[in-house]
């Protein structure tokens, strides 16, 4: 009886959405990420936790090559999405970022209308053949982000005029609009109040059905609430990764234990 779930788990493990193998990141001489191996499961939420400067955001940014924009930053090892090496010279970073969307700490809507915020990505990627298709993408993205009812009558108003929580959900809707497969979130709720946070967390839980989500968070309670798996980073090393419940009730590594129980300086 006990054998069955293990076999299922093993099968699931072989179908990782993202696999990182011996990933190193250097900022000049600073070795920021050391030998990180991780398998990220499709259609699930994986949380990266760890103290400030542990490399969790740096590692997150390697997944859609955001570090390419930083001078002196060098990435080694391999990161594959659906088996394809994203650092292959043939890969177009712009196409990659359409497939791997990102949401940042501070909501950063474009200084444009709500409609144009969503329509921007589909336009540059040529995802809509005409105005009516574009309208459909805008409305369905806003619906998926749980924002439609709040904004449907004011799509031409500026996105920057919305509340912080609405802006963040607008950014999530904007990420969804280009039909990504993976959504990376770098502390998406740290600038939001508890109610806006709860709405974003609810949204993350719904998005999990269709997307692979990786979230960096400083709030362990948030990691515990939204994720199925949790990875703990410390000093550029991936210390421990496993089912979220295990990480928070019975972590294997002393460093994880010290961090989650608040024993770390």
């Amino acid at each position, binding site marked *: 009886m006990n054998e069955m779930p293990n076999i299922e788990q093993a099968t699931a493990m072989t179908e990782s959405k993202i696999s990182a193998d011996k990933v190193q990141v250097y900022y000049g001489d600073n070795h920021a990420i050391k030998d990180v191996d991780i398998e990220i499961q499709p259609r699930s939420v994986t949380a990266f936790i760890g103290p400030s400067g542990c490399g969790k955001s740096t590692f997150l940014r390697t997944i859609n090559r955001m570090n390419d924009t930083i001078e002196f930053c060098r990435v080694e090892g391999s990161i594959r999405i659906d088996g394809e090496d994203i650092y292959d010279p043939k890969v177009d970073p712009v196409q990659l970022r359409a497939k791997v969307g990102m949401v940042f700490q501070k909501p950063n809507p474009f200084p444009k209308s709500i409609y144009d915020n969503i329509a921007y990505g589909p336009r540059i990627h040529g995802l809509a053949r005409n105005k009516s298709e574009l309208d459909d993408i805008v409305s369905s993205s806003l619906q998926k982000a749980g924002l439609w009812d709040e904004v449907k009558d004011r799509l031409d108003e500026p996105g920057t005029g919305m509340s912080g929580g609405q802006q963040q959900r607008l950014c999530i809707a904007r990420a969804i609009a280009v039909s990504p497969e993976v959504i990376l979130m770098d502390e998406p709720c740290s600038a939001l109040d508890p109610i806006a946070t709860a709405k974003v967390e609810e949204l993350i839980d719904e998005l999990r059905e269709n997307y692979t989500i990786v979230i960096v968070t400083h709030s*362990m*309670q948030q990691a*515990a609430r939204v994720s199925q798996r949790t990875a703990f980073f410390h000093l550029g090393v991936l210390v421990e990764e496993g089912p979220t419940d295990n990480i*928070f*009730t*019975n*972590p294997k590594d002393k460093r*994880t*234990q*010290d961090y*989650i*129980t*608040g*024993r*770390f*300086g």
Partner: protein
Amino acid sequence: MSEHTVSAYDDELTAMAGKVAEMGGLAEKAFADAVSALVSQDLALAKSTIVQDERLDNLHQDIEEKLIEMIVRRQPMGQDLREITAATRIANDLERVGDLAKNVAKRVIAIDSDLQNKKLAIGVEHMTELALSQLKKVLDAYSSKDAEAARRVQEADAEVDAIYTSLFRELLTYMMEDPRSITQCVHLLFCAKNIERIGDHATNIAENVYYMVTGERLPEDREKMDETTGTA
């Protein structure tokens, strides 16, 4: 383990474990007193045991409130979370031990006559010794966070159950031989059952200590030894 960044959290955890240990001491004493009142038909001791149970109840309530407060204020994780959940459960078990001891003390007053059969008293005493030593060992295992000691307590519970089974049979025999002894024997039977239950609570505590220390469930690897269930 190293200390929390917030040192008040350490103080709260230490205070909590101290209170649970204090409950353990009170429960042990109530149990020992109740049985010694039973064996020597000491009504005064029985009465004071009954009164003392209130202290255990108050302490239990106090611990529960503190634990809830810690969950609210600290959002415990990992080892801390396990210590807090274990303390909640252990405090519950100890409160029940107190109730069972109190019930034995009440029966002393109900019997209110010398035990007709000294052999039975010896059986009850022997069972008590074992259950009491189980309780002591498991409380030590809790204080010293010793998972192995907790495991041994779980294993030894079979002995308490075996004595209970033999006492049960003996009592049945006496009741059949002399119907006038039935009232007293039924009281004794309940007392024996209470003591056996105290052994079970010690086992529960052992399981919680094991989980608290290791994060793993203690496998239940023994057959239930209580053979009276089919007949009782």
